[in-house]
């Protein structure tokens, strides 16, 4: 009975591994947002126009907004199962800083729901007739933007995790907060299309990402404590 207390990094890794394992076992939670993203994007040409000129114009915005919606939908299962089965209480009672444990959950969530969307985006960009030179910018902007969405959305999910029927409240809270990410993400792609350098926007998004990595988990942790109370 004299086991050593784990280091914070071990607890961080254990949480990351556990969440990835759960995602791997509950494939629906991973596949559905991904499918949702592809289907929503495919609806736009049907609703707006099949002409490639018009599609080129809206491609970046359509992909970005679909990513926002998909990431918001997938956020729902970030803490809910843990809240219902009591694992969240165990997480809160860990002697390790909650910041890192929440960060581990956010990272795992992004790996299974954000990253696949980013990886498939060039294919959808092709279908929306986005010129090839903008692919790299699109992927980079999504690569920086989707984790920001996960981190910020995590706060709203943590605040609403105790609600029996959440309905659309998560969307009402999170979507307005995604405006800055949407603006810089689409502007980056737009500027590549106008043969300007997107580096300015991308570095701004990098700044936003580092600020959210360092602050958002703190807010999520506080929100979880409030919800579990």
């Amino acid at each position: 009975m004299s086991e050593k207390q784990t280091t914070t990094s071990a607890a961080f890794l254990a949480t990351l591994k556990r969440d990835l394992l759960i995602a791997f076992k509950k494939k629906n939670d991973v596949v559905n947002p991904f499918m949702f993203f592809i289907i929503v994007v495919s609806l736009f040409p049907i609703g707006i126009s099949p002409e490639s000129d018009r599609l080129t114009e809206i491609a970046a915005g359509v992909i970005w907004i679909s990513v926002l919606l998909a990431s918001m939908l997938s956020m729902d299962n970030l803490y809910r199962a843990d809240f219902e089965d009591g694992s969240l209480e165990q997480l809160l009672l860990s002697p390790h800083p909650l910041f890192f444990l929440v960060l581990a959950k956010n990272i795992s969530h992004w790996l299974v729901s954000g990253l696949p969307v980013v990886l498939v985006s060039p294919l959808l960009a092709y279908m929306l007739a986005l010129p090839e030179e903008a692919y790299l910018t699109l992927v980079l902007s999504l690569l920086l933007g989707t984790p920001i969405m996960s981190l910020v959305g995590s706060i709203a999910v943590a605040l609403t995790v105790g609600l029996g029927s959440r309905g659309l409240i998560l969307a009402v809270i999170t979507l307005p907060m995604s405006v800055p990410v949407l603006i810089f993400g689409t502007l980056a792609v737009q500027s590549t299309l106008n043969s300007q350098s997107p580096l300015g926007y991308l570095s701004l998004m990098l700044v936003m990402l580092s600020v959210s990595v360092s602050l958002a988990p703190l807010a999520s942790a506080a929100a979880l404590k409030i919800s579990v109370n």
Partner: protein
Amino acid sequence: MSSVASNNSLDANSEGIMLSARQLFCERDDRVLFQNLDFDLAEGQVLQVQGSNGSGKTTLLRILCGLNDSYAGSIRWYGQEIEEQAAAFFASLLYIGHRVGVSKVLSPIENLRWSCSLKQAVNEDQIMSALKEVGLRGFEESPCYTLSAGQQQRVSLARLLISPAKLWVLDEPFTTLDTKGVAQLESILQDQAKAGGSVMVTTHHQLTIPQLSLLSLG
């Protein structure tokens, strides 16, 4: 409003007092659950919290664990306020609530790997022998949604066997257990008390443990 009746005579000095609560007051939805609540939990003591439904047993346990902070009063861990040494307190605390903290998607062994590693380093042998001891041999790898409620409770009880925590806070741990499980849990609690650890437990079950004291609410 509340009283502490003990089978054991407690020492009057604070030597060996692990957890002490003074003047606890809690109000929920304009209703006072308890007020002026004082009690001490000594090393080697098992404290059973009694009270009718809705008397605030669960709330009291959650307050003591730091999960609920809507109370007034002071809670000390070896003489110091728990807020001031949260990490040390959490490291020596093991809480099992109504919701036992067992993920239904994962197998017992995967569940234990995670929940134990939040506190202390464990190896596979410890987990396997603990699972065997609580009677889950053969179920180590099956997802928990295939297990019965009692078996899921047993997964959480396996954590007790692995845990070196000095303080166990258990909310209704007997509810879904069969008679054999009840007897086993009682002996586990007794072992914890013998080893100098303490237990706070709510249950409507009649415990037969020599180190038992009672705390009645409302």
